[in-house]
Each structure stands twice: as C-alpha cells, then as structure tokens.
C-alpha cells in the first residue's frame, strides 16, 4: 500500500514538473520570432528553422540554462529582432528617458522664468 501511495505521489509531482517545463518552453517559443516566416513566432511555425530552434531551446532548457541565457544566446546570433520582447537595452532606455529629461528641463525653465517675473 505504501509503495502504491508513493508511486502516485511521484507521478503527481513529476507531471507538475513536466507541465511547468512545458509552459516555460511554450512561453519562450512564443517570444521568439521565426525570421524566415511572416509575422509568426516559432511556436506557431512549422518551418525547418522554427523546428530547429525549438529543438535547440528544449535541449538548452534540459541542460539547465534559464530563459535569459537562451534569449542572450539567440540575440547574440540573430540580433534583438529575433525576440518579440527584448527587454530594456540602451536604445529603449534612451527612448523612454529622453522625453522625461526634456520635460524636467522644460519645467525647471518655466519655473525659473515665473519666479523672475514675480520678482
């Protein structure tokens, strides 16, 4: 009886681990652009390129690499374009921060001009 319960617990736990791994795989596949297809991620594509990438990503995950390491590897080979959501890099940071900096400088100037006028 003990053995039977232990076997069931083992199966439940291993199926949870398996589904978590599958979820992560699918999440990565959906974020990788199939560069030989039109507007498809490798998750949606059955092209040779997409199949090869899926196999490689799966192998890398099995070897213990994490999501970021896989994205870094693919970006180093194919550029930011391969990832749908490449995260913050220098270019995107500049695009986000510059309008804010201009807004602060502008606000400061208006504030100073107003103060001078009051005096």
């Amino acid at each position, binding site marked *: 009886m003990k053995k039977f319960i232990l076997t069931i617990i083992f199966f439940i736990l291993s199926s949870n681990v398996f589904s978590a791994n599958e979820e992560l795989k699918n999440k990565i596949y959906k974020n990788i652009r199939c560069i030989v297809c039109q507007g498809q991620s490798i998750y949606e594509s059955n092209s040779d*390129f997409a199949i*090869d990438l899926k196999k490689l990503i799966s192998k890398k995950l099995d070897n213990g690499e994490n999501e970021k390491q896989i994205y870094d590897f693919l970006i*180093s080979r194919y550029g930011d*374009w391969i990832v749908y959501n490449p995260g913050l890099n220098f*270019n995107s940071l500049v*695009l986000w921060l*510059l309008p804010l900096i*201009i807004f602060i400088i502008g606000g400061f100037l208006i504030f100073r001009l107003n103060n001078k006028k009051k005096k």
Partner: protein
Amino acid sequence: MNNKYKIIILGITIVIIFILFLRVLNSNKTYQPNQMIGKKIPEFILEDLFNKNTKLDSNVLSGKDFAVLNIWASWCIPCRIEHPFLMDLKDKNRINIIGLNYKDENGNAKNFLKKYGNPYSSIGVDKKGEVAIQLGAYGVPETYVLKKGKIVFKHIGPLNEDAVNKILQLKK
C-alpha cells in the same frame, strides 16, 4: 552667468538630446545578418563527411589565417548555382574552403560532390542544424569568411561575382 551663454548652452543641450533621440529612433529594428561579424567562430566538433573517425574542430579553423566556411546541402538548389564559384575559389585562387553539410544524407552529399566537384578541404556533418544556428545562419547556402578565427564577412544565399570579389579582396 550671462543670459546669452545660458541660451547657447540650453540650445546645444536640446540639439544633442534630439540628435541622440533620432539616432536611437532610427536604429535598425529588422533582422541584422551581420550580427556575427567581428565575433569569434563558435566552438563545435563535427564528424567528417568522408571519414567518421576524423573530426572537424572549430579550433582548427580558429588557427587559420584565412578560411572560407560554406554551409551547403545536396537538396539545396541554390547550392548548385553557387558551386562553380566555390570551385573557382579553390582551383584558381587556392582558397581553403571548409564545408558544413547541413541536414543532409551522407550518401546524397557524396553523390553531389562526385557530380559537381569537391571544393572543400574538409566537410563537417551538421545533421541537426545546430552548428548552423550557433553560426547565426537560418538556411542554406550561407558563406562566412574567417580571419584568424574571427568572422569578417557573411554572405546569405548563393555566391555571386560580387561576393567572390569581396572574398578575394579580404584575402589580400
């Protein structure tokens, strides 16, 4: 500080900010085939097409002053178009060409070389296409020029006269 100088400094700051903004905004957001240029060739060890006991080691490629790495397959029609260019590079220009046989059957690859000639000094078998991905390739044919193990030029698609001239220029 004089008001005049303040306005000049402010003007210059705004111009610099806008130039930076425009440069970042116009940066390339499409597939960049030159991503691997300037990088060292990735490490790999592949079985040789003609001799299972021999391996094609990327370290051997890294040691060479100048080499051309060509990804090809017998099933790839554009590879037949570029083949005469590869033969010329080998015969007329004595360029060391290493082949990467991509997702192919060994028998078909050997028959292809028997029929069209063998321009390669050695050929690694990339059955799963993993080394091609390591190289940043997405299909066949693709050609890389290596100088002391660094990728200095990449050509996507079948070689043509322009690409061959570029390779010869790089060899000088």
